[in-house]
């Protein structure tokens, strides 16, 4: 896992824009609501690359992104070969 997101669930309004923005399909809406009754998202798997797309589109600035850059170059090289194929597979 190269990346990790930390969601401030009490600030989140459950709009789901991060779910759509995630290129890895790593974010899903959780079944547990917050105090306001919104359903915040959660990280569903270890595919996060730390690209920050979810945090960039979050209207409530409720997402913090952490990334382990030590293996980043290696990981980027690995993904660039099959990136298109794996994306299609993920979406399907």
């Amino acid at each position, binding site marked *: 896992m190269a990346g*990790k997101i930390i969601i401030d669930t009490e*600030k989140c309004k459950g709009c*789901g*824009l991060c779910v*759509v923005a995630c290129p890895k399909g790593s974010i899903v809406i959780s079944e547990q609501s917050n105090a306001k009754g919104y359903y915040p998202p959660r990280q569903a798997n270890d595919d996060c690359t730390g690209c920050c797309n979810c*945090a960039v*589109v979050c*209207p409530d600035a409720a997402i913090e992104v*952490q990334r382990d850059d030590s293996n980043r170059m290696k990981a980027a090289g690995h993904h660039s070969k099959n990136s298109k194929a794996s994306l299609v597979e993920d979406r399907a």
Partner: protein
Amino acid sequence: MKTVFARTPSLKDCPTHYCPGCGHGIAHRLVAECIDELDIRERTIGIAPVGCAVLLYDYIDVDCIEVAHGRAPAVATGMKRTNPEKIIFSYQGDGDLASIGAAEILHAGHRGEQLTVIFINNAIFGMTGGQMAPTTTLGQVTATTPRGRTAAEQGYPLQVSEIMALLPGVIYVERTALDGAAGVRKTKKAIKHAFELQVEGAEGLALVEVLSPCPTYWRMPPAKATEWIKTEMTKVFPLGRLKG
């Protein structure tokens, strides 16, 4: 693991009153990020509009002033002329800037005032309950155009950026959209450039029009609203740098 994205210090650590999926939250964050990156927090004064973003000063931690509906460019003119070292920005919606404040923005541009204007265009009046705005697209259903806007009855959508780009006093006009991660990143670049021009003392007004989703009054889920910007809104309001 190191933190690569976190809440910027100029954005107050509190929840906003905006509806889920509203573009204002994103735009506020971008403005705050640009202010922090340019290190101008201590000398920036923001002007809040009348509209959904009326409580801007509750969210962006810089000096702010609330002014009469649409009069932000007029007040900003006075502020900038008396305090030229300050960075003045106005944050206005389409009801504020394109409707009641159309004269003010036009003349601030025509006088070539050194201002940064963030214009949030969501094609509807959000705060008052989803009525037609000057920027409402043809065919768009709103509370006051229940059968869709028609050119014959309500006229055409007002293209503020195109009008402003014609004025010699306006030095930078760009239209961007909050229609996904790429669009948000482009919007940030544009907002930052608009601030940079003022920081560098460029003479003239910089305006960034941001196409922003209003899922509540467009009556669609947030993800669909961003799609609607891409597929429908950009037809009427083409993206890109119009001047500068």
